[in-house]
């Protein structure tokens, strides 16, 4: 394995772990409030998978970072500007359609990314990707199925899904942006250049949206700033306010 800058590797792992942490938090907000009991179960299950993935990615990030870092310290004691998730996952749940559309747009990217990471030159990353890709395969099946069902359902469900897609699509592009961190990962054979995933993503999303009878908006603008930490949305601070409250209020306590 080529020597890689450990700071860059940490950043890369934070991006993966913060995506799943913040999305897991959002999905868990649905608990007990979904349209039907099966969806309560499925949403809790998805959130649980995402939190489990967070433990793996942030656990490895903490290991690389060294000192006395831990997955919990990274999750509960960093402030908003140190988070590296894409903006898409911190957007509000909206209605059930918006939540499932956001889930599909993320799942599609994550499934493709994990397929590449299985071949990572870092065996720790390859092992996590291998383990996690099984559950993510199921997530894509479920979220794409629901997007198709609701897009091609009633007039109302179709209209709501189109509104959700229009709102969320400008946040898709950020998942495919590259910077120095990504260049370092590519050079070390750890991860692919994000932009190299785009064609496969467009093909998958295009197929699902066609089946859902939904129209993908023109890709005119991309909101960005989450994965670099340069500028998150206003929503992240509120997420952290509840997520980190106990750890911040009672420092040093064990739970």
């Amino acid at each position, binding site marked *: 394995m080529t020597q890689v800058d450990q700071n860059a590797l940490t950043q890369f792992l934070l991006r993966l772990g913060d995506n799943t942490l913040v999305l897991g938090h959002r999905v868990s907000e649905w*608990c007990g409030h979904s*349209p039907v009991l099966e969806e309560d179960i499925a949403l809790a299950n998805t959130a649980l998978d995402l939190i489990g993935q*967070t433990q793996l990615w942030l656990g490895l990030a903490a290991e690389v970072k060294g000192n006395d870092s831990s997955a919990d310290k990274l999750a509960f004691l960093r402030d908003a500007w140190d988070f590296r998730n894409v903006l898409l996952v911190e957007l509000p749940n909206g209605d059930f359609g918006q939540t499932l559309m956001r889930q599909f747009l993320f799942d599609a990217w994550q499934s493709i990314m994990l397929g590449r990471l299985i071949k990572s030159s870092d065996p720790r990353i390859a092992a996590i990707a291998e383990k996690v890709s099984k559950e993510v395969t199921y997530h894509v099946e479920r979220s794409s199925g629901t997007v198709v069902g609701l897009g091609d359902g009633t007039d109302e469900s179709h209209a709501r899904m189109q509104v959700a897609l229009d709102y969320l699509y400008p946040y898709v592009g950020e998942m495919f942006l590259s910077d120095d961190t990504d260049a370092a990962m590519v050079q070390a054979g750890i991860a692919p250049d994000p932009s190299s995933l785009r064609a496969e993503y467009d093909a998958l999303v295009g197929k699902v949206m066609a089946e859902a009878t939904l129209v993908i908006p023109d890709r005119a603008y991309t909101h960005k700033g989450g994965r670099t930490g340069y500028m998150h949305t206003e929503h992240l601070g509120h997420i952290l306010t509840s997520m980190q409250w106990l750890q911040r209020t009672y420092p040093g306590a064990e739970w």
Partner: protein
Amino acid sequence: MYAQMIKTARAGIKTRDEMSDLERDFQDKIDRDIKIEPRDWMPDDYRATLIRQIGQHAHSEVVGQLPEGNWITRAPTLERKAILLAKVQDEAGHGLYLYSAAETLGESRDELTRLLHEGKMKYSSIFNYPTLNWADMGAVGWLVDGAAIVNQVALQRTSYGPYARAMVRICKEESFHARQGYHAMMKMAFGTPEQKAMAQSALDRLWFPSIMMFGPSDAESTHSEQSMAWKIKVKSNDELRQQYIDQTVPQIEYLGLDLPDPSLKWNEETGHYDYGEPDWSEFFDVIKGNGPCNVDRLRNRVKAWEDGAWVRDGLMAHARKKAAAKVAAQ
């Protein structure tokens, strides 16, 4: 115990002479501990009583998601968050098995849901209390799931086959929840002074509501007799409550917390703990809809159902289109 104050659909018990041949055969089966299965003949009142009990139990699992869901986004570690999510997911799953058990009696989940939303069916009184600090998550697992287990272990022997089998599966998961709850409680009770105070507060607030889960004393319970004869109910409310108290008090002592009821004392003579009577007027208030969270809990469930109508309709419409397309292709 997630079903309480179930009105037996019949007042009083018939003597053997008053029973028809079918009723006598049915009672003989029950007396010989032969399970009643969905296609077997059963008295209408037996069916109606079971639907009420299983339905209330199912509703309790579903509404029970809310007080715990209240803390998922604030869970203090990733592991605690994962444990809580898994628990709430299990509860929704229990709701699903129980609605399925009710369906074997000819009552649909949609109908039971409608009755809940219209206030014509109830769920366990315990879920009308708020969860106010993180120790409540430990206490709910330990005390509430603990009380449910005492009742449900007995219900594994209930006379209706699908309900008894659902209980076997549910009990396994509930036992796991109770252990996890107690573990979380240990962390709090043995933690910082603030954490210990949270643990004490949770115990003090949830103790009486948890022993009220078993329902009023048998002396005042007018519906128990027939349910016991039919073996829908296997042990009396007071027997179950005593068993629960006897097993829980030593656990409180191990945590080093103050007893939540000054009357709790070991009685050498009876071999059981004596305890103070809960405030039953509070219990009846909660049952009538005047508990601290009744209105909000039900509103939340109704809102979830109403807000989700377009989703259910959309998915059904899609399924119909697909089915029609399949037929057309054949």
